Structure formats: C-alpha cells, structure tokens
C-alpha cells in the first residue's frame, strides 16, 4: 500500500488551455495498492484535472506525441517514461510543442 503523495503538476506551451488555463496544480494523490507511476498519474489527471478534449492530451495510455514530460526539470526519457515511480514532492511538467498549444 503506497502512501498518499503530494506532487506538483504543471502545464505549459498551451497545454494549460485544456485545464481551464490553470498552469500549476498542487495535487494530492490518494494512497493505493500499486505505487504511483506516470502511467497512473495520467489516468488520474484525465479523470480529475482535464476539462475538455482528452484526445488532445492523452493518446492510448501515454501523452499525445508532441507533448514533452519533465519530472523535476529532467527529461522523462531519462527516468523510464511511463514507468517512473513518483516520489513525494515531485514536480511533473507537461509542455505542449504542438502548433496552437
């Protein structure tokens, strides 16, 4: 049983437009059986933060190609991408590089 985590989720490059224009979200992820990883964070975001057009942010179980993910200001490709296990106080940033955000 993983303890609840407090993480900062941030959106940039126009991705925030899908989240009511709010860039920074301080969120608490509830405790659950499996440890929290980015994959499950995305599911959580889709359910709890995403306001509209989920297909413009999420595709399959990952983010849409063209959206970059940074964990604590480092490329998620260095950290195992979807399998990265979130730690308490991590900050996760999604930057859209798509035209028009």
């Amino acid at each position, binding site marked *: 049983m993983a303890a609840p985590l407090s993480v900062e989720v941030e959106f940039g490059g126009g991705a925030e437009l*899908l989240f009511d224009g709010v860039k920074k979200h301080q969120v608490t992820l509830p405790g659950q059986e499996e440890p929290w990883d980015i994959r499950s964070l995305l599911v959580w975001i889709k359910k709890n933060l995403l306001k509209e057009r989920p297909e413009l942010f999420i595709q399959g179980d990952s983010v849409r*190609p063209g959206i970059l993910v940074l964990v604590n*200001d*480092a490329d998620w490709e*260095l950290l195992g991408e979807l*399998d990265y296990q979130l730690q308490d106080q991590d900050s996760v940033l999604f930057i859209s590089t798509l035209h028009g*955000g």
Partner: protein
Amino acid sequence: MCEMSEEYRESAPKGPPPPRLGTGDQKCVKCKEGLPVVVIRAGDAFCRDCFKALYVHKFRAMLGKSRLIFPGEKVLLAWSGGPSSSSMVWQVLEGLSRDSAKRLRFVPGVVYIDEGAACGQSPEDRARTLAEVKLALQTTGFPWHAVALEEVFSLPPSALRCSAQEAAGTEGAYKAAVDSFLQQQHALGTNGVERQSQHCAQDPQSPTGPPTTAQTQALSRLFDSVKTLTAKEELLQTLRTHLILHVARNHGYSKVMTGDSCTRLAIKLMTSLALGRGAFLAWDTGFSDERHGDVVVVRPMREHTLKEVAFYNRLFAVPSICTPALDTKAPEKASIHRLMEAFILRLQAQFPSTVSTVYRTSEKLVKAPRAGCAAGPRCLLCMCTLDVDTADSATAFGAQTSHLPQMQTPVTQARAAAGPCCCAGMGGAPGCCKREDPRAQVMEQLCYGCRVNMKDLPSLELLPPYILSEAQLRSQRATAEQEIREYLLGDSEDEAGTGES
C-alpha cells in the same frame, strides 16, 4: 563542439541503450560528468551546461556558416510570442551581450504581428495580450514594432512587388547580400542615422495607431468567409508575411529572421507538398529565402528541434507568451497542417530520426526555377516565380490553367481564344472578358498552390485592397504589353491593333 555535421550525429554512442530506470549511474554524453537532464537525438543524454553550449553553438554556427548576415546590417526578428521565436530573440540578446570577439554584430529589431482578429479573440483578450507583448518587447531593449494584422487593409499595392534582383543560387545571394549591405552602410552614413534613432523605441506603434473597428470587422469577415481551416492558415501566413516585409522595408531592414524550428520545417515541408507547393519547397523551408529580392528571410533556428527549444526555454527561463492560434484546440484532422503535424510527430515518437530525415531532405533541395521561368511573372500572393507550363495539360496544374487566359501565350493564340467572345463584333478591347471578372484576374496570377487555396475563398472581394489593385495593375500591364506587341507585329492584325491603341 564544432562537428555539427552528419558524421557527428551518426557516430553518437549507440552502444548499450541508456539505462531506463534511475539517473544515478547515467552521465552526460559530452562531458561524462554532469547529471543528464535532456535526451536529444537518438538517446544522447546531455547535462544542463553541455546542452546549453550545444544549443548556443548551433545558433551561432547557423548564422556563421551561411555568411549571409553582415556586421551592422539591420535584421528584423519576427516574433510571435511562441517558444521558437522567443528563443531566437533570446539567443540574439545573449549574442549581443557577449564579449567583443564573439559578439553578434548585426543590428536587431523585433516585429510582433497581432493576429487576434483573425483568430477570433475578444478585444479585451487582445488588449491583455498586447500589454504583455509590449512589456516583453520593452525588456529586450531592441527597437520594436507591434503591428495589428488589420494593417494589411492599408498596405500599398507595391507591397507585392519584388523589388530588385533576385539572386540565383547561393553565390548570387551572397553577392546580393553584400550589395544590400553596402547600400545599407551608405544609407546609414547619410540620412539613415536619424531614421534609426527616431524609429520605435519610444514610438513603437505604427503611425496609423490601433486598428479601426471597421478594419477589424473586415478582417474577421474575410477569415469567416474562408471555408476550410487549411485555407485560413495559408491566408493568415500570406498576409502576415506581406505585413512583416512591409515593416522591414519601411524601416530599412534587409533581413528578416523567423523562428522556424527543424520540427516545424519538417512538418511544413510535408504540408507544402500536400498543398501543391512542391515547386517552392526550397524557398519555403530553406535557410534563406530570397524570393522577395530586397529583403531576405532567414531561419536561424532550423537546426533546433522543438524539444530542444522547449527544454532550453524551460531550463534557462526564456519567457514566451502563449496566444491562441487559429487551430488551438482544433481536432487532429481539422486541417492539412494539423494532420501533417500529428503524422510527423507520431512517426517521430516511434522512429526518432523521422524529423531529421525529412529536414535533411529539405536541406538538399536546390533553388532552381524551371528553365525560362526565372524572370517570368511572380505569384501575386506567395511571390514565387510562376512556373506556368502551358504545354503541360496532362497535370492537375495544366488542367486547372488551361481554361484561363495565359499571360505568356503568343499573341495570335490569345487573340484566337479571346476573339469570339469580346473582340468580334463588339469592337471591344482584347482580353476584355478577363478584365471583367476580378476573380479570374486574381486567379491567373497565382501559382498552383495559391490557386487551390483560393478556391476556398468564395468571394475575393473581401481580400485587402492592395492585393486586388495589384492584381488589376498587373493584368492591365499584361494587356498593354500584349497590345504593344500586337502593334509591333502589325500586318495581319492591323485593324484591330491600331483601332485599340
């Protein structure tokens, strides 16, 4: 840092794939010491410092190796507020603050085009964005010009004329640049000085001031009338380019820098192909674009991928302003541009060298208009040399153009075609039928891609006046030239020729 060539890319350590979990044991591929923060190309992890060095080097190398920008030359940076152009302005800022040996030595200015009206922004949102933009522009310390897209309605027809020589090939372009630089120096020596000091810094708004409501309405009417998002995007790009060039000419800039990244250019290349602009790919996506003659457009960010740009801006706190574009929140299949972007990026996600492969292709394209067309007429909108091929009736272009009167067809042919409908019996001027229809008048002066695009504009009368009047001017000129030629050839068409002149 100097081996920017392909071997360098190819020889990047490919050996064991980077460890997937945990950063502890991974080091920067460059300095072998720093903690990597970003993966670029196929799996090369860079630390913050090495990434910065690479990024800056690419920008400077791009400018350096092209030898296009001369010391003291006035360069207009086209800034949209987006990440790539913001990064470009930042690179220039940094480049100018360096110590003398490494300093960039051109004289920059920034132009911002407010496209709010075309994108359907409310006046309040536009005012807010503009305030933010002006603040950002002021902090750069460069002379700046914030221009509303509405100003296309007060452009003179001469904005569409390609002044002076277009240089063929790189060597010619280089010479042309030298020439323009010399002229520039000369102008600066005489009357340019006061012009330079007076412009902008304190009087940034163009003399016409904020756009009138009527102009804003006209612009939204125009964009609302366009049937497809694809055509809207193209129209916006066309009008924006005209306006930027106009600003550049008015203020004596001989170069315009745009922030197109390599990702964007790869997408643009495929989009242009799909839009029927294949003949102009080299101009549309190359490093330098000399189609406008006196003002050359350069793309110094074309070695940077969007990922690099986004990381750089984030790691080094480069501010950018996010304004909604035409296609914000649009679904993936809303336009050819959008679709191509999704296509390329999805491929890139699976095959990490997609973008670079497409981009390298664009680098190899040579700017060579079809033989015999180089000095011919230009497309009214995109200013590319019209490669009209009258004999080529088997292609889509031929099929499309065959029913339009050709400016280059021999007189007799033209008269034969025009004869029955207007010259015979009526005693009217030759070619009067094409002059009666403003749509045909505009269409015949467009390249294939622009023609296809204009099909989605049901009414061309909504276009800004400078386009329509230039179209009319050109068509009158063509008719007059034809008449003169007829007169000179004389003989068999004697009566018609003398009667009309």
